[in-house]
């Protein structure tokens, strides 16, 4: 392979890695929108909390003398999912449920309030400085001709792909095969009708927030390990990017969120590859505007039909 194609391959790997985590966070936005038609602006903060919990659990377990990395990671994952889901459920209970049925703008504002609250809550309890974790999973494969360009694929990147792929598959199976998943799809089609048919829609909506938060916690764990640094403000940027991914793919559509995340990640990497990297955000958001101009409902979104 030539130097150029090796370089392109490297940037593609970089883009897909970051894109997969955007996709994981984006699903939380898209599921909530799909069912209750609202944007959960506190979702980025849930991701940030997931990262913090991971760091605390890993540091705690290592302090207790547990040396086996897989055990530490599994415990961290379980604890992060549990705590983040609790926060996700609480956000729904506190900031959404009491306001359901009101003007759409009101829960939006309360969600932004929730987001600011959670951010400052973490600042006060954990401090506003960067918290760092030493690299846990190191090494990787190098291939390509070292005299031209050596492509590196780290174990961490492989882990990110693998975990993202597994979570996405499980989610798809859950939505398409399980009873609860069927109820979710029914709610997404017509909330009022589903309620009339005897399904507890409150439960389903709470479940949506919990599932979204669990995926955000997985992303928090993966990105926390990958970058090794977390601060109370990471949720804002990550949330913004994931929200963009969800809109790009068609908000409300789960495959759309996955696709949108990957497209956004790859676009960022490719822009940084061939233009000065400060244009990265200009190009990705330019792309978003262009796609919305031609397909206002996003790539895989269904156009909203006014119900009569």
């Amino acid at each position, binding site marked *: 392979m030539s130097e150029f194609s090796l370089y392109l391959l490297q940037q593609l790997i970089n883009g897909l890695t*970051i894109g997969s985590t955007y996709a994981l966070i984006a699903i939380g936005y898209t599921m909530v929108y799909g069912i209750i038609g609202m944007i959960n602006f506190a979702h980025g903060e849930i991701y940030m909390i997931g990262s913090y919990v991971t760091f605390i659990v890993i540091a705690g377990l290592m302090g207790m003398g547990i040396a086996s990395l897989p055990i530490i990671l599994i415990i961290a994952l379980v604890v992060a999912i549990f705590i983040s889901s609790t926060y996700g459920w609480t956000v729904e209970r506190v900031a959404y449920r009491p306001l359901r049925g009101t003007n759409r703008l009101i829960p939006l504002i309360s969600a932004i309030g929730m987001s600011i609250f959670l951010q400052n809550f973490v600042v006060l309890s954990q401090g506003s400085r960067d918290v760092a974790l030493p690299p846990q999973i190191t090494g990787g494969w190098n291939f390509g001709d070292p005299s031209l360009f050596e492509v590196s694929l780290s174990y961490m990147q492989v882990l990110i792909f693998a975990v993202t792929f597994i979570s996405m598959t499980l989610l798809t199976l859950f939505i398409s095969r399980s009873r609860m998943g069927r109820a979710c799809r029914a709610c997404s089609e017509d909330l009022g009708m589903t309620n009339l048919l005897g399904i507890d829609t409150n439960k389903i909506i709470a479940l949506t927030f919990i599932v979204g938060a669990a995926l955000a916690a997985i992303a928090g764990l993966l990105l926390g390990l990958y970058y090794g640094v977390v601060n109370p403000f990471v949720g804002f940027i990550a949330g913004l990017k994931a929200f963009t991914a969800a809109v790009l793919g068609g908000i409300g559509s789960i495959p759309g969120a996955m696709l949108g995340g990957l497209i956004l990640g790859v676009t960022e990497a490719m822009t940084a590859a061939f233009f000065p990297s400060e244009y990265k955000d200009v190009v990705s958001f330019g792309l978003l505007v262009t796609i919305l101009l031609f397909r206002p409902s996003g790539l895989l979104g269904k156009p909203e039909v006014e119900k009569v």
Partner: protein
Amino acid sequence: MNQFRKTLLSLSTAVCIMGLTAAAQAETLKIGLAGPSTGPVAQYGDMQKIGVMAAIDDINKAGGINGMMLEGVVYDDACDPKQAVAVANKIVNDGITQVVGHLCSSSTEPATDIYDEEGILMITAASTSPSITEKGYKTIFRTIGLDSLQGSMAAEYILNNAKPKRIAVIHDKQQYGEGLATSVRDLLAEKGVKAAMFEGVTPGDKDFSALIAKLKKENVDFVYYGGYHPELGLILRQSAEKGFNAQFMGPEGVVNSDLAKIAGKASEGVLATAPKSFDQNPINETRVAAIKAKGEDPTGPFVFTAYAAVEVMTDAMTATKSTDAEVLSDYIREHDFDTAIGKVKYDEKGDLTESTFLVYRLHQDGSKTPAE
């Protein structure tokens, strides 16, 4: 009766006067201490505070200034230009006439306008942006060298010592980082060394893999980074993971033990221009011991520049027996001072006549040694 009244009157007057003098003795001379005590760069604020408080303790132990005890009052600007203006106004309202601070150049700049206008003596121990002293202020000084000096020092080191084959200059698009990066790039270009890349990154970004792949493709073997430690730490960490092993160099904004915490082993051997390690200077032995005895860290780059800022202020106050900023400023411009950072002499603008920087090599345990 009349006699008695007179006595009573004089007695009460005497009591009053005694009360007044007692009050005057109890009153302290306040020194404002402006910098971040919260936010992402709060460590630098801590360094400044350690230095100022140590200086104040030493001076008070030696009997204070003109019979008055000193007291440090901490103001938090979080390194945010808007909060810096609010802090400056608060200092004016609190009637404080001497300020050590601010810390980040971008906060110092808006605050200087207020201090100069209100006749407050301000000495910054950390802000290195040249534009701060370029507006012809009278009461603004520093105890640290300029950015531009750091840039030329870095460029000189790159040309004479590092001699890289291909160099990239990266910055964080902010006043401090981009300013330094531009000056390094231009100085190198003057000597015929053209940077292979000159690019900005977004502060707060976490993923630099695309940038690193590009550096790798360009076969860069030396990277100058203009910015602060959180981004450089991640760039170093991700470079090591991707097998990109260039020599990195940064300004004093990256000299922070958090760099080693973020980057771990990857931070070993990074070059940086930083204020000289005054804590290793034998003249500061007792001061270092006193700071350590309080359980604080004397090694930060701004500890002794802050210490020296207090010394310059108080020396001028002792000599002039005044706290008037104009009088003090005139005195400071015309005299030399013996301080914790060595001999200090000012030019007309209020800048030091000699650079206080040196090129250091940083280590993974957070320490630093002078670069060869």
